[in-house]
């Protein structure tokens, strides 16, 4: 629900401030708002959400909490050789995971995927509600 409130608020704001903007620009603003609301609803405990929020100037500070795994970080976890390519691609796809060790990477990935699914589901619901109730022609 936090995600929903953030995102709906952002959509309203975008609508008011893009009345004379191009379709592409508005689309870009909406996409940014989507990733931001994902990150805001997760908070600062995930590397991916912190990375997304760093991209946007935000008022107030986002306190970085301690990493969940309390073990000493000297020894990096390595996966089997044939997994390295997949792991490297993941590090590029999931924000904020550059140079992350594999165990944390897997954890971040799972969290990121869950949030992406939630955001997509939210956006689908919004599209459905608006299309059916307010835009019967579309």
């Amino acid at each position, binding site marked *: 629900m936090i995600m929903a409130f953030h995102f709906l608020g952002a959509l309203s704001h975008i609508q008011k401030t893009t009345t004379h903007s191009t379709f592409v620009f*508005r689309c870009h603003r909406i996409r940014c708002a989507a990733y931001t609301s994902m990150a805001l609803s997760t908070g600062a405990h995930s590397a991916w959400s912190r990375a997304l929020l760093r991209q946007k100037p935000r008022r107030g500070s986002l306190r970085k909490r301690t990493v969940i795994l309390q073990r000493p970080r000297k020894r990096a*976890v390595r996966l089997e050789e044939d997994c390295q390519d997949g792991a490297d691609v993941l590090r590029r796809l999931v924000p904020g995971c550059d140079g992350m060790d594999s165990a944390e990477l897997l954890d971040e990935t799972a969290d990121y995927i869950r949030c992406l699914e939630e955001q997509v589901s939210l956006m689908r619901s919004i599209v459905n509600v608006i299309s059916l109730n307010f835009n019967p022609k579309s």
Partner: protein
Amino acid sequence: MSARRSRSRQAGAGRITDEQIDDLMSKLQAILPEARLGRNDRVSAAKVLQEACSYIRSLHREMDDLSERLSELLSTTEMSSAQAAVVRSLLM
């Protein structure tokens, strides 16, 4: 997540326990849609990672498509009136 050191490998080869990696892999496999991997326990770790990448890419594309759709709708719908309807439907 606690740092489990049971059955850890000897020598500092730089690995956390295999068990921990397996658990994380299983967790990741469990959240990928069934159609991509099936529920077969014997999917390789490399395959899980590959499917995770592919799934994330498709979710990103879907976000793009939905953003476009919303952009179209915003140009013709008054959001402040639609907002209440959206919230109601989400709460139900």
